[in-house]
């Protein structure tokens, strides 16, 4: 369960003050695949950062799986993130000097697992996203879609409570974008992972349980979209 209670966040840009989020309150039940949508500057990425513990609200409270994030300092927040959140970005997801399987292994360096066990889990995660056959390729040798798959594998390898994706299909062609969305939906169905996805992509609506819309930092009525067949 993700709870956002009366959260506000503002930025200063030069002399301007930008109210990225204003008094947002919402709840996301476990196991839901949710899209955060809205025009540019609507605050969706900001909200995502708050859910993932990458940023702190100026006021209000974020509680993820029972853990209030405000009580954690920066180091604790990092540790919490490592344990509980899987992250997928639009660009530069992967470390270029590491191979696919090594990239997936990366978050496991923060655990107490030993090398053979780390490698095993990484391979499993890669298989889960359909890339078992390309473990030793470097990112430059993979297509955009394949790179995002690796990123997804990395996001699930620590078995997090929550997966957070910021514009995962933004840099992909139509076919790859659909493949990625299908993969995410599959992960949500098969493993019950909560996924919150920020997206511009209207296709995304078809794959998710719920759509949360933001405009200028404020929730527009949360609408329930029907789950895609």
């Amino acid at each position, binding site marked *: 369960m993700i709870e956002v209670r009366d959260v506000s966040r503002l930025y200063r840009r030069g002399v301007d003050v930008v109210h990225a989020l204003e008094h947002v309150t919402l709840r996301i039940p476990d196991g839901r695949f949710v899209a955060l949508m809205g025009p540019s500057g609507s605050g969706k*990425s900001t909200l995502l*950062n708050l859910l*993932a513990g*990458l*940023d702190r609200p100026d006021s209000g409270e974020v509680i993820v799986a029972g853990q209030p994030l405000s009580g954690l300092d*920066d*180091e604790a927040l*990092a*540790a*919490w*993130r*490592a*344990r509980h*959140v899987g*992250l997928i*970005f*639009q*660009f*530069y*997801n992967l*470390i*270029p*000097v*590491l191979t696919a*399987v*090594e990239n997936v*292994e*990366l*978050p496991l*360096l*923060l655990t107490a697992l030993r*090398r053979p066990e*780390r*490698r095993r889990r990484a391979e499993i995660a890669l298989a889960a996203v359909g890339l078992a056959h390309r473990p030793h390729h470097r990112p430059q040798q993979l297509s955009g879609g394949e790179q995002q798959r690796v990123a997804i594998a*990395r996001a699930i390898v620590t078995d997090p409570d929550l997966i957070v994706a*910021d*514009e995962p299909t933004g840099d992909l062609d139509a076919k790859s974008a659909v493949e990625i969305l299908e993969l995410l939906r599959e992960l949500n169905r098969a493993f019950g992972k909560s996924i919150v996805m920020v997206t511009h992509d209207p296709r995304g609506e078809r794959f998710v349980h719920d759509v949360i819309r933001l405009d200028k930092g404020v929730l527009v009525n949360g609408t329930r979209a029907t789950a895609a067949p």
Partner: protein
Amino acid sequence: MTWRRLVWRNLFRHPLRAIFTTLAVALAIFLVCAVLTLPAALATILERSASNVRISVHHKAGLTYWLPFAYVARVRNIPGVAGVNHFSWFGGIYDEPKNLFPNFAIDPDTVDDVWPDYGIPAETLARFRAVRNGCLVGNATMERFGWRIGQEITLRGTIFPVNLTFRIVGVIPPGVGNPYVLWFHRKYLEEAMEERGGFGNVGMIWIRAERPEDVDRIMASVDALFRNSEAEVASETEKAFIGSFFGSMQAMIRVILAVGFLCVGAVVLIAANTSAMGIRERVPEIAIMKSLGFPRRAILLALVAESTTQALLGGLLGAGGAWGILGALAAAGKTGASAFLGPLGSFRMSPEIAGQGVLIALAVGLVAGFVPAWNGARLPVVEALRKLF
């Protein structure tokens, strides 16, 4: 995948840059090692000659002042004296004036009493005593001129108006003492000088004390013995005597060390530049790592490890190169000590110096990498992420 591998891979993401930086560090460490051989060479010589029971006695006014030969006998009677010998600088030239090496007229009978630590075999000493124009030669001079035992050589006198021909009867083993020295019988010189005004002086006297505790007392006795006489003496331990020669080299060595220090500074800047460049380019990755939950400390350590490893590679290459090249030069005789650059000319490198070179490289890596790494690790995650998108 491990931390080590990540650091290693990051090092070589720009192979050209990594190679350039490694080479730059290697070159600087090579120089530093060469420079460090200088004070080390002097220290080694002092170490080797640090006999704590040998005393040198010379004219108070300087080494160019002769002492009366009669002094030698008088010194023998001082209690606690285990052996007495003497040096008189002949200054002979072999073949060419450039080929300067120290040659002395000494007492062949008490060599073992005063220099037992030189390890000259008993048969060699017996031969030396038996052959009137025999001489003992240090191994370095033997090698330099390619002499053989049994060979006859002639030294042309410069201070003495005589040329002397010697037969080489033995080699002074390497390890202790001056490896370039040649010793011959004083009597042989005396005889040669008979028609030229004779020779009744001695350059300096060497005494070996029975026990180290006696040294101070013996020195005081010797000085007192000849006070207010025709030639006053100054005695000092062997270590002090040799050390006094090095005093005048200190200033030059300091200049050379300062130069080495500047080179280290240069390479710190070069390495820091490389480090900063690499980190600046990797802001997105650092952001990813932080977002994945890697704590600041881990990132800082990884970045510092990178620059340190880089410098270490350069240091190993540089120290190894110095070892190899200087060693080869020394073996080829290219860096043979010139007459007065003396030990400074030989640039012999020891493992300790190689170790010091590598340590300096490590320090370079740490210093050069720290500030860029600190800045990189401290990057606020959200800032970094925003820079991406």
